[in-house]
């Protein structure tokens, strides 16, 4: 059976039923357009969030912990020795020979590494006392491993060296404590040490928990608060490609013996929730496309019902059942194809319009535009799924209609 004939019959059917064809096309276009918009919006927000997360956090953090209790020398020497109730010898905290470890890592690491001393402290200002994480950094190295320098809203990273006991605090924390640049606050360390510090800068990362609970100082100030001069208890790594962080972390841990946590591991709960969210979003988008194909199903059902005499006559003339069925599937594909084309345009326009919408974040006080991710994959995937939906939506009514025996129709007509 020549495809041209089937195409010409299909085209005649759809072109002489303008209203039905437009409704079918409109249904597909709406489904495709809104699915593209949803995909762009959801993936955009997710990528934006991950980018913030990756920018704010080190890609890999090496700290002075170990994942398991280190083995005793006797255990290493003698296989039969079993150790129990090993005395706690309170070894000195911190990474041993941090300079040597850093030099070793720099020799092969696809990125940079910076030392830091991390502790907890209480920041006290004007009666407000808030527990924070204090990270002592070296500004010379810090610029290579974090975006802190670009996140500064007031002051600069180098200002840490210009004032005695200078600190940089998050914007949200500064607002909570009503602290401004140049103010003096009191920092209380875990060992009971109290130090007056000067706020030399304010940063905003965009992550609430960081902006509310993180402060930075020079390494020396953090060491003083810890009561451990010269201690480096954290190495922070930034990689050229954040996506290989997990693999590199495993290599680093194998080399140094210290617990190395990639940003993926540190946020595994969050990433897991993203996977759940992705599944939900895909389900919703699938449902949208499926719903839009119901319009096609209805229209093809109507056409096949109206065309049952034509179906009978085409079959009686000798056209095969499969060929007649193909006519209606072609009709659906014609409507679908044009609908998909309009859906792509609609999707792009919706994405563009949505990207112009700004949202005010009451926590950060910033007005940011909705993040939209433009990907050709969204268009290809929605087009392919919509095409499949159209074909399936047409197949069932077409099969039902073409299975009817022509004699039943011919007798019915007479």
């Amino acid at each position, binding site marked *: 059976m020549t495809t*041209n004939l089937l195409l010409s019959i299909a085209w005649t059917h759809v072109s002489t039923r303008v209203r039905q064809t437009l409704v079918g096309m409109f249904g597909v276009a709406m489904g495709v357009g809104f699915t593209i918009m949803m995909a762009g919006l959801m993936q955009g927000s997710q990528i934006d969030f991950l980018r913030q997360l990756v920018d704010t956090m080190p890609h890999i953090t090496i700290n002075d912990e170990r994942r398991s209790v280190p083995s005793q020398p006797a255990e290493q020497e003698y296989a039969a020795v079993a150790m129990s109730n090993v005395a706690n010898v309170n070894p000195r905290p911190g990474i041993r020979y941090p300079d040597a470890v850093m030099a070793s890592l720099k020799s092969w690491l696809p990125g940079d590494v910076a030392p830091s001393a991390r502790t907890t402290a209480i920041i006290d200002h004007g009666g407000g006392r808030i527990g924070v994480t204090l990270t002592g950094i070296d500004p010379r190295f810090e610029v290579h491993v974090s975006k802190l320098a670009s996140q500064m809203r007031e002051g600069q990273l180098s200002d840490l060296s210009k004032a005695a006991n200078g600190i940089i605090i998050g914007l949200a924390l500064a607002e909570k404590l009503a602290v401004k640049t140049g103010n003096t606050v009191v920092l209380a360390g875990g060992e009971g040490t109290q130090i007056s510090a000067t706020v030399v800068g304010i940063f905003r990362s965009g992550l609430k928990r960081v902006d509310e609970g993180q402060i930075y100082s020079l390494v020396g100030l953090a060491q003083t608060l810890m009561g451990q001069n010269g201690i480096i208890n954290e190495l922070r790594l930034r990689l050229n490609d954040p996506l290989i962080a997990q693999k590199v972390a495993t290599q680093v841990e194998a080399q140094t013996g210290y617990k190395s946590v990639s940003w993926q591991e540190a946020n595994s709960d969050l990433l897991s929730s993203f996977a759940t969210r992705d599944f939900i979003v895909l389900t919703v988008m699938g449902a949208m496309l499926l719903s839009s194909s119901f319009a096609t199903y209805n229209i093809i059902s109507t056409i096949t019902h109206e065309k049952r005499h*034509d179906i*009978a006559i085409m*079959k009686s*003339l000798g056209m*095969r059942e499969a060929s007649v069925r193909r006519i209606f599937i072609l009709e659906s594909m014609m409507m679908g194809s044009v609908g998909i084309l309009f859906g792509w345009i609609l999707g792009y326009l919706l994405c563009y319009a949505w990207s112009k919408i700004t949202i005010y974040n009451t926590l950060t006080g910033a007005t940011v535009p909705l993040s939209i991710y433009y990907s050709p994959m969204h268009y290809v995937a929605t087009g392919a799924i919509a095409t499949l939906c159209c074909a399936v939506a047409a197949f069932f009514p077409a099969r039902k209609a073409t299975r009817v025996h*022509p*004699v039943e129709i011919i007798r019915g007509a*007479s």
Partner: protein
Amino acid sequence: MSEIALEVVGLVRRVQGVISHTLVNGIDLSVEKGEFLAITGPSGSGKSSLLYLIGLLDAPTEGEVIICGQPTSKLSETERADVRLTKCGFVFQFHFLLPEFTALENVLLPMRAHGRMSAKDMHDRAMALLTSLGLGEQTAKRPNQLSGGQRQRVALARALSNRPEIIVADEPTGNLDTASTEQVFGILRDIADGGQTVVVVTHDAALAARADRRIHIVDGKIHETTFGGARKPEIAAVTGTAE
């Protein structure tokens, strides 16, 4: 000896349902090439059922339909469709033209479905058929722009387009006025005289009398066979049913 175009052997068609009944009940029949056969009978006698079985639109419960020497009872639905496309041409009481297509496009349909001719040849043949049936000026018109007689002539042109061996017509003049009836029947007669076999179901006894042979069906069986026209001796010799 004349060639047999159509042979029906022990044909039975039963319908199973709440009440089962037999539409065609053991019919044997041979139709010569170029013969004009009329099937008559009262309503519900099984004449249309017999026609649908002959045209392979329906499958028999028992028996065999042999078209141009080809037994058809074991053919698949697809193979039966192919036989219909190439060897049978249908004309119905209602013209059953595709309403969105012009007269020319309707006539082209079986040829395009067959796909064995070039576009130009198909067009030329369709035009020639329509012109020969007096529709040369109506080729671009859609069925709703044609009169009943014109529609039926388009249907005839469509039936003839693939040069089928057998033309099967179910009450082709049932909805036509006297002039159109005369015209359509004249065309069918010409087709038979041209060498194609014509099998027509009709209620019109006067028209049936103009066929080479008339079989009268009652309760699914051939009740009476009547010969007419010049072909009678030949037909009787072939079928062995001369009275």
